């Protein structure tokens, strides 16, 4: 159990660093989602299932959805191009 816990915690640290380093906002949100999912597993391991349910529903589900919507609103996600972060130079 300890080994699993250590692996999960290392994954958490990697995710947290990757969210801030990543240049692509969409990828950042996806990594953040996986962070929340792993965090909910960690909550179960340290015996707080209440928090695990809430983390899975809010952290991995709703918050990421709101982030996606915000990105769409500020037009950083476009279905056609693969580079959502490009500058607004097109006329």
């Amino acid at each position, binding site marked *: 159990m300890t080994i699993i816990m250590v692996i999960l915690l290392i994954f958490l640290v990697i995710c947290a660093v990757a969210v801030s380093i990543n240049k692509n906002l969409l990828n950042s949100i996806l990594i953040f989602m996986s962070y929340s999912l792993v965090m909910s597993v960690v909550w179960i391991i340290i015996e*707080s*299932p*209440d928090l*695990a*349910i*809430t983390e899975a*529903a*809010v952290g991995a*589900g*709703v918050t990421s*959805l*709101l982030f996606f*919507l*915000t990105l769409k*609103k500020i*037009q950083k996600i*476009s*279905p*056609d*191009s693969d580079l959502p972060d490009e500058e*607004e130079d*097109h*006329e």
Partner: protein
Amino acid sequence: MSRKREEKEYQKSFPYRFSRWLKGEEDPFIGRLEMKPQVPRESPERHFDPSDYEDIKRRSRDHAHNKRWQGYGKLYQVSSVFICTALIALLVYAVSYLPPVGETGNPANNEVPERYITKGLEETGAVNIVTGMILNYRAFDTFGESTVLFVATGCVMLILMTGKSRGKRGTAEEGTGNGMAERTSITDTGDSMSEKISAEASGKRGILAEGSRSRRTEAGIQISVGTVGIETGNRVSMGIETGNQISKEIETGEPKTEETVGTDPILQVIAKLVCPAVFLFGIYVILNGHLSPGGGFSGGAIIGAGLILYTNAYGFEKTERFFTKKTYTGISVSALSFYCLAKSYSFFTGANHMENMIPNGTPGAIISSGLILPLNICVGLVVSCTIYAFYALFRKGGL
């Protein structure tokens, strides 16, 4: 003793003129003021040349030749690294002084958790001690949290609500053109920009694409492109902003993606299978909050996520049949006020919050533990409504 005035003197006085003006017999300004006929004021148009704009933009972002920019950039990098390192060092230093988790001698193990653990079941009647804590011992905290959610929705409404109702838009577009019905799904986005496009496109449609009756999406995009052309051609002076935005709009393809919402068959089939299970699980989590892990907040979040899935699959038309702004206001306000009334009885009974008027019942039964079950339902309602309201407000700028 009153003095009788002469008629002529009275006619010069203010009350006489005022009464005549009031009755409409005479305009006090005609004949007394010098007047000029009004000249229609020229609208102050900014004369932007697009090449000027590009030049300014290019020069202001020229990193290589801007010494100040470079200096500030270096300063920014160095200071950010310094501040981050200092903060991390401080936090790690503080954490190293914390006692290890789970020790018996920790300061957190005082009489409060002891009371919660030993007497919690007896006093609150909730098998799940966490729910017993947050909805009985700490019920006022939870009330504050629910109110925060309500206030947050109010703030999002203030910022994002566009205030354009769907019915008004529909009638306005019906008036403008024939064959506009096929474009309603594009204009249902709620996005003000795409609305603008569709309005302009509908205005120009008669000129541009009278004969062409192609498919839905193609028609929309064609009209928009043509409109941009005419816009920039006719009014170059103000064409910078609108042209920029419209072209960006077309490049991102906003109307096209919005149109596909509610028509994806894969998503619809999956949602048909999953949605009832999600809703049932949410209701189960809420109702079993005092028996099993979970509670109002978790269950409400699950139900809210289910509502979002349903909306994504079937579109806003389906959800608007049962969830409107009126529904949101009614549910949230009634749930919060019930919570408030149910938990403020202690103010009227001598501020002894621990004493329960409602019997606790047998621990483990669904209907037990006094007020915790109704309070859980209240919190769940507020949370689920809030989450769906956030989604709807972010998505279309209205409920």
